[in-house]
Structures are given as structure tokens and as C-alpha cells.
């Protein structure tokens, strides 16, 4: 399954403020089994881009297609993991994961068997009956991941899923996501504002800049392949090539930040 975004623009209109051009002429392809990462500071239009792919909003111009069929709304072929925690607190961990299968009409034994399998896959065996609000942030995102995988989508859209986690949990989760990507062979579109995370995860990284949100640079990478092969995340992240690219992108983002908004640079320097 291939998802293609062509010349997509989104303008938010509102009654009492001027229209916001949140996404300007973005084009992007998520190939089969690709891992595409969108990198940029807050307000670059990353979430807007993801929402357009998920079908949560309609484009002002351009198109989103899945295997040449235009996207007109959300659907279980595109799983979403949200920036905000969107687990249902009235359901147990197991029922949250099984939720999509319940909607599809699967009977209880079948959907629970599948949900247990997925919980094991994300390392949450034994938490089936737990309440979601008793879990840590990292565990909750694991549940969200399992829930998104339950309907067996070919593509996963993830909006800063690790943004709220502490850095240690975050690294563990990055490795979990790499493992999942390698073992399930899903296509992934992943949003982050961490340069290191983008380089570590992506087979392709698109760098975005704000006002208006647009893609300013694309990189094709193989660090994630090296991680899968070597199973040594620390070595990949300390590779001189990795570090050099990290600095290059940092400079790039700072420059464009300075061009479009001087306060951005000051805020970052401070």
C-alpha cells in the first residue's frame, strides 16, 4: 500500500482571526514498508499533514491518495497513534486494544486472543485487566500502539507518540518501534521534533519549516536498517556520520527558523 500526498495545502479559516496557511504545497510518498519521518518545530504543520493523511480534515488544495484512491475520511486501513493520550479510561487495557475488532464485529474470544497477542508484542503481557489510568505514560503509548495495530492497517500514522515521555523511556520506545516496524513490515509515517529521533527511525526524513508550513529538505537514510541489522542502537547513534548529519539538520532548522521568525531563534538559544 502506497500513500501519496500531492501538492497538499491546508488553510484554517476562522471567524475572528485571519486565515492560517498551516501547510503549503507539501508532497510526500509513504512507500510500502517505508518509514517516513516529518521533523520540525511546533507549528510547522506536522499534525495538519498527518490529519490530512488520516482523513480527519480536507485539503484546501492538492490530494491524498492510497493506492490511487483518494482519501475522503478516516478508515481502519490507516492506524493512528495520537500526540495526546486517547485511550478510553472506561475500558480495560485489553478492551482498548480489542476496540477496533469489536467495532468490526469480531466475537469476544477472537478479538481478545488477537489483543493478547498484540499486548505481548508491545511488551505488556500481564496488564490485560489493568485500568489505563493506572499505567505510566510509556505503557499507555504501548497500549495505543497495540490498539492501532489491532485492525491490521498497512500504514501507521504516528503524531509525536513519544513527545511526552522522559528520555530513557523514549529511547526504549524508539527501539520498540524499530522492532515492530522490522517485524510487521508496516509502512510508518512518524512525526517528531527531535532531530536524533528522526535520524534514528526514518528511512526518509522530511524537514519542515513554519509559517507557512512546508517541506524544506528531504533525506534518504539507512541508520534504521543498520539498527535492525546490528541491534545496537547506541552504536548507531554515536556513529560520526549520524552526529554530523544531526548537526547539519540542527543548523538548517535554526537558519530557516531565523528567516521566518527571529523570536524562534532567540527562544531556542535561551
Amino acid at each position: 500500500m502506497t500513500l501519496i500526498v500531492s501538492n497538499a495545502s491546508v488553510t484554517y479559516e476562522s471567524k475572528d482571526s485571519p486565515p492560517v496557511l498551516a501547510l503549503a504545497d507539501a508532497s510526500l510518498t509513504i512507500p510500502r514498508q517505508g518509514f517516513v519521518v516529518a521533523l520540525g518545530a511546533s507549528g510547522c504543520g506536522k499534525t495538519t499533514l498527518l490529519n490530512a493523511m488520516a482523513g480527519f480534515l480536507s485539503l484546501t488544495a492538492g490530494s491524498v491518495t492510497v493506492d490511487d484512491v483518494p482519501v475522503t475520511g478516516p478508515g481502519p486501513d490507516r492506524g493512528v497513534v495520537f500526540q495526546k493520550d486517547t485511550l478510553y479510561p472506561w475500558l480495560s487495557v485489553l478492551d482498548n486494544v480489542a476496540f477496533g475488532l469489536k467495532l468490526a464485529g469480531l466475537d469476544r474470544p477472537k478479538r481478545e486472543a488477537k489483543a493478547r497477542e498484540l499486548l505481548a508484542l508491545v511488551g505488556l503481557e500481564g496488564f490485560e485487566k489493568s485500568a489505563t489510568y493506572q499505567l505510566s505514560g510509556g505503557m499507555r503509548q504501548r497500549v495505543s500502539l497495540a490498539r492501532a495495530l489491532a485492525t491490521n492497517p498497512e500504514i501507521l500514522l504516528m503524531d509525536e507518540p513519544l513527545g511526552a515521555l522522559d528520555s530513557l523511556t523514549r529511547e526504549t520506545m524508539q527501539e520498540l518501534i524499530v522492532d515492530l516496524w522490522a517485524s510487521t513490515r508496516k509502512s510508518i509515517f512518524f512525526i517528531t521534533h527531535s532531530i536524533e529521533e528522526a535520524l534514528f527511525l526514518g528511512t526518509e526524513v522530511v524537514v519542515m519549516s513554519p509559517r507557512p508550513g512546508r517541506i524544506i529538505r528531504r533525506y534518504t537514510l539507512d541508520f534504521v536498517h543498520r539498527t535492525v541489522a546490528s541491534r545496537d542502537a547506541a552504536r548507531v547513534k554515536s556513529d560520526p556520520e549520524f552526529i554530523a548529519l544531526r548537526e547539519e539538520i540542527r543548523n538548517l532548522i535554526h537558519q530557516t527558523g531565523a528567516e521566518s521568525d527571529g523570536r524562534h531563534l532567540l527562544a531556542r538559544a535561551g
Partner: protein
Amino acid sequence: MVDISLLALAEGATPSAWSPRGLRAAVARRGIPITLISALGLLLAWTLATQFKLVAPLFLPSPFDVATQFYTVAVDGFSNATLAQHVGTSLFRILTAFVIATAIGVPLGLAMGLNRWVNGLFSAPIQLYWPVPPLAYLPLVIIWFGIGETAKIILLSLAMFAPIVISAQAGVRSVSQARVQAAQSLGATKAQIFRHVVLPNALPEILTGLRLGIGSGWATLVAAELVAATKGLGFMTLSAAQFLVTDVVFVGILTIAALATIFLTTLRLLERRLTPWKGQD
């Protein structure tokens, strides 16, 4: 239970246990609710005030008089009915009104939360009448529905209705867009989103609305039984007041307070039971 905790307090009653710090420690250690202490303090003040004749019994009968009168009203009755009959009549009115207010209020509130036309149609009249005390529109209810049982139940229903509707509406509105989107991306239809996301999401607010509704129903009981009642706790209290039988007035007030507390506590327990996630996420 009360006796046990009192005993426990008395057992540990070394002089220091009665110092403020000792008492606070005892409260923490024995788990004595602060509300119990405040209730006992009030009872003590009441007893002392009547014991030393600080207030005339006509204005403030002693706790002992009230207890005796409670027994008399329970056994012999007051105003042609026993206490149990008064309670039964009032309970019937309140529960009937509660069922009516819930059966109409919850679905209407849900519809208002879902649809802005329904909301536009109903929210203005509800917002307008809600703050008006039921006693103020009682004459209108009597003109429209007479002085029989119907008018009483309608007055109580109206008092309960507004908080129930508004809470159900707010419950629907409180659902986050992301939770809905999560369901959509898992393939949920509109009906499934309502059933599996909007409704459970609104449940804590709906239950809070029911509790507020019941509270406001009990607060309206005396007004509802003001005109042409022959039974009921509110009626009993009012007629006792007319004959200046102050201790029966106290019996009425305390019985209403006790019943209202039982209702509110039950609903609060139900909330905790059904929506344990409330305030946790």
C-alpha cells in the same frame, strides 16, 4: 460504627490525646471522619444551649425532646398520618419525579449535546427557568395543573430536570475530538461512536447531574407540599410550624436531611462504582 470509633477515642484518652495535636493524631490514626467530629460538636452545642436555657424551647427544643417527639410521631403519628406514611408519600413523589426528570432529561441533554438545532431550541428556556426558585413558579404550576398529586410531581420534576439536562449536554460536549478521531480511524460508524465513545465519556457528568437533580428535588419538597397536601414530610413540617410544635418541625427537618443524605451518598457511591476513572485521566 460510631460507637466503636468513640470508644477507640476514649480508650486512648490520655490527657495529651485531647490536646489539639493529640486529637488530630487520633483522627488520623483511627480514621475518624472530621464530619463526625463536627456533627458531635454541633449536637453538644445544641444540648448545652437548651440545658442552660439559653434559648426558649419554643425556638429551640432540646435534643431529648426532639428524640421523644420522633418516637411519638413514628408511633402515634402527626397530622393524621404516621411518620412512615409521611415518608412514604414524599418518597413516592420524589422518586416518581426523579424517574420522569431522568427519562426526559438525559435523552434531551444528550440530543442537545449532539445537535446544535436541538440545543438552540431548548437551551434558552432551560437556562432561563433553572435559576428561578420553584416556589416562584409554584403558582403557575397550580394554575396549569391544579392542586392534586400531578402538580406536586411536576414541580419536583421541574426542579430536578434542569441540572440533569444541562449535565448530560455538558457530558456530550466534553468528549475530546481526539477520542472521537481515534474511534473513526479504527473504523467506527457514527452510531458506534455515540454508543462506545460519547456515551461512556458523558457518564460521569450524567451521574453528577442525577445527583444534583435529586438534591434539588429534596430542596423543593416543602414547596411541593405547601398547597393541598394531606401527607408528606414537607406537609408535616409545615403544619407543625403552623401550630408552633417546634420539636415536630425539627423531626421533619432532620428526617428530610437524613433521607436526602442517604440519596446523595448512594448516588455518590454509584458514581465511584460506575465511573472509577473520573478525575483520574
